[in-house]
């Protein structure tokens, strides 16, 4: 289980849906763009989990909220996020493994550009195999 303090070497996963993936299998930027009214980007800390457990986390925590199937994920290191002057803020309840990427700049164009950069960095996403559905 990850600790209460985020280590820069930790990996966080952003779960992705069909509309988040282009035909060339890169990640669309809007998957990493927060809303204006809630400028937190939801991610999960996958430290110590097997690939199967990472997908199980999506089934348990994400699909019921989004009401659709997670088909892939974009993995980023915390260091990559912090390089963009953002902060990975873990939930108080560590066992949830949930965290938010916060401290987005107020300027909308800067946020949109960072989202494109994160999507490009995370484009080596793992695709969920059918047997894990």
């Amino acid at each position, binding site marked *: 289980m990850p600790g209460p303090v985020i280590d820069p070497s930790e990996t966080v996963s952003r779960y992705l849906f069909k509309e988040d993936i282009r035909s060339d299998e890169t990640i669309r930027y*809007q998957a990493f763009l927060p809303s204006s009214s809630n400028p937190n980007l939801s991610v999960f800390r996958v430290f110590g989990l097997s690939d199967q457990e990472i997908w199980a986390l999506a089934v348990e925590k994400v699909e019921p909220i989004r009401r659709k199937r997670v088909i892939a994920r974009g993995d980023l290191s915390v260091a990559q996020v912090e390089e963009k002057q953002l902060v990975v803020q873990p939930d108080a309840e560590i066992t949830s493994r949930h965290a938010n990427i916060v401290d987005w700049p107020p300027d*909308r164009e800067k946020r949109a550009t960072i989202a494109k950069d994160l999507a*490009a960095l995370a484009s080596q996403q793992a695709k969920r195999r059918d047997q894990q559905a």
Partner: protein
Amino acid sequence: MTTAAAFPSLGYDLSGLSSRTSRSDPYDFLCRENLRPPQSLASEQVRRDDIDERLDLDPCYRESNWNGEGADPVPDAAFEEARAFLYQFPAILPLPDVIAEPDGYLGLEWYRNKRLLYVVSFNGQGVLSCSGLIGQTKVYGTYYMDAGVPSEILRIITRVVQ
């Protein structure tokens, strides 16, 4: 606010972008680039039909929280702004993908690869919110469509798709 980083290999100075841009007729720009505007009314109608089809997104994007993570609704006016933009957009350039963005904007994405893309976003308030990646360089800025598609936007899109 407008900011853009200079990128020498582009052949033009992105740092010169301004929020109230000096516009030129897009066709003037395209003629300078040795490109030709469309001629046929029939082909123009086909293109308009294509634009309308691209903008025909699922109505769910007009509602709050359409992504289950607090997404802002994309207002009808954003669709109309995007339509007006694309109707004026030079036919020699390809049409973009249309994307509902979680912060309530409607994005038009010109994409070559994950490090060469440009998005013009609309929120129904008359502002063009633009951002993209040109290699390792980030380009972004705000523009207004007072009298046509800003020439700086055309220059960057041409760089992405050429």
